[in-house]
């Protein structure tokens, strides 16, 4: 098999000239359904016996190019897109879990995922147990006979934390459960979790993959290396499926069975499909992912270093700084950069944080990350406002904390903007 370089895959993987028109750029197939060739082919499509398009909730040619491209960048066997990163997580767990089952997640997590795991999933009787992303043994201690998966973010939001992927993967291997990694903040340009032993990667492609703050999108990629039959715990994949006349997904689709099952069952039945136009915008964004990530990381390091030397700043939580406790993890897992999302603490506390977000003129004050534009948020007065003082501190959102997502603008303009806003 040809082994193309990452930058070539970012531009080309999954795409080819349109078979009907020769259009070089992937067309936006803005259609809800597809005509069948004949009644026999229609039946075969519904039975999954042949490959083809049926209905855009389940598959769409524009979306399929995005799925294949992200799968190629991650080095996986197949991908599946969803309407958001949250939807992608929902589909992954819906495929793996059953009522009463548990999974273990790092507690260093995007706040929205904390809610999804602890609140929304509890309604399905799926239960999360928490562990520490930097301590693989904490995952081993949380294992029970109900554990069905292990989850963490490669670089954890709100930044600074680089998870011990290799150590956590070893625990998953010993327990015999799939290791799921949210690779949103790192992107495969910085970290390819499959190379450290992960089995499933999820993305909010809304962030650095799409990269321009214009489209919600989510993605799932599978490594093709997990043996779904061994433990007998993943019945969706191994048992006769009643909604497809008794087919067994793992036996039939082998090393891409997880994505086929997540598509043909969970996406079909729950419905969070990606719109083709969002897939198109995300694809266009991915073409420049390597260039953008390099600049994002370079700018972030310069700004973190500048902040760390500024007397108005109490601390900077960026693993790219040599003084950071996770600098060694950064050198091991993502030597090309430590990402562009990180937090820092203002000596002036809550009021200084409020003043900063009101005074910046290039940084945008909003609740997103991974945009070409630099972004800022003061969690204590926004995303974490509803928590108690104590819980805010535990969540890394104390009164002095500011989160930055560094964009690709001229770094001296970004420094000047922060400098004037901290006056």
């Amino acid at each position, binding site marked *: 098999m040809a082994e193309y370089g990452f930058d070539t*895959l970012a531009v080309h993987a999954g795409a*080819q000239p349109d078979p009907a028109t020769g259009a070089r750029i992937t067309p936006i197939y803005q259609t809800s359904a597809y005509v069948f060739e004949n009644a026999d082919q229609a039946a075969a499509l519904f039975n999954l016996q042949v*490959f083809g398009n049926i209905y855009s909730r389940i598959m769409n040619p524009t979306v399929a*190019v995005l799925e*294949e491209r992200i799968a190629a960048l991650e080095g996986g066997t197949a991908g599946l897109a969803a309407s958001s990163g949250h939807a992608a997580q929902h589909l992954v767990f819906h495929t793996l879990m059953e009522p009463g089952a548990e999974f273990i997640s790092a507690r260093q997590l995007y706040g929205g995922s904390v809610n999804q795991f602890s609140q929304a999933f509890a309604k399905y009787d799926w239960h999360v147990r928490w562990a520490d992303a930097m301590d693989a043994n904490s995952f081993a201690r949380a294992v029970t006979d109900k554990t069905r998966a292990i989850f963490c973010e490669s670089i954890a939001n709100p930044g600074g934390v680089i998870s011990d992927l290799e150590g956590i993967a070893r625990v998953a291997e010993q327990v015999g459960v799939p290791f799921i990694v949210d690779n949103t903040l790192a992107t495969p340009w910085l970290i390819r979790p499959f190379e450290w032993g992960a089995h499933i990667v999820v993305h909010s492609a809304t962030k650095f993959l799409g990269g321009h703050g214009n489209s919600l999108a989510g993605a799932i990629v599978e490594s093709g290396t997990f043996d779904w039959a061994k433990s007998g715990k993943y019945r969706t994949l191994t048992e006769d499926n009643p909604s497809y006349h008794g087919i067994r997904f793992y036996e039939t689709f082998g090393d891409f069975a997880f994505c*086929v099952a997540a598509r043909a069952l969970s996406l079909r039945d729950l419905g969070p499909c990606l719109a083709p136009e969002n897939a198109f915008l995300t694809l266009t964004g991915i073409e420049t992912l390597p260039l953008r990530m390099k600049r994002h990381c370079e700018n972030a390091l310069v700004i973190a270093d500048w902040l760390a030397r500024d007397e108005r700043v109490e601390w900077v939580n960026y693993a790219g700084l040599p003084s950071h406790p996770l600098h060694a993890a950064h050198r091991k897992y993502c030597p090309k950069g430590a990402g562009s999302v990180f937090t820092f603490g203002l000596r002036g506390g809550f009021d200084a944080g409020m003043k900063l977000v009101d005074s910046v003129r290039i940084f945008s004050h909003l609740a997103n990350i991974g945009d070409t534009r630099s972004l800022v948020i003061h969690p204590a007065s926004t995303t974490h406002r509803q928590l108690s003082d104590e819980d805010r501190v535990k969540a890394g959102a104390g009164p002095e904390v500011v989160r930055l997502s560094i964009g690709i603008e001229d770094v001296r303009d970004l420094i000047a903007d922060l400098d004037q806003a901290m006056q």
Partner: protein
Amino acid sequence: MVPNYPDALIARLLRSVHRIAMIGASPNPARPSYFAMKYLLDKGFEIVPVNPGQAGKDILGQKVYARIADLPAPIDMVDIFRNSAAAGPVTDEAIAEKQRLGLKVLWMQLGVVNEEAAQRAEAAGLTVIMNRCPKIEYGRLSGEIGWYGVNRRTIDNRKPFAFSQGGTLRRD
């Protein structure tokens, strides 16, 4: 050890074989062998099902034979839909009939790996593929499987044929 094969080899085999004996073909529409048989028939291959329990009956309109020794020549490829242990004796039957059938390729399905059998078949002059599905490989190399988000690991800047005409596989 999972064997790895170059795309060029798989593509060459899929373009060169025409009549495939499918060992372990099943009349049950939920079985992977039925999926593969239906798909490959749709793509223009001739499939001859082999299954002693179904001998004399039809699967997807094709007459079923009990054993390789009963097959009418020519047969280009034997595709084994049996477990890895059973693949051994099947391989020996195939080797015994190689000359008469004009057999060129011995293919073991996804999950089927039998190194000793593969060595015997290669020594007899057969090209051997293990742990792969011709349906999936055809879908991958023609481009059609990309509709399922599968990573085809190929880049091609040419306008492909329609998938019903072989897609990218027809090009090279």
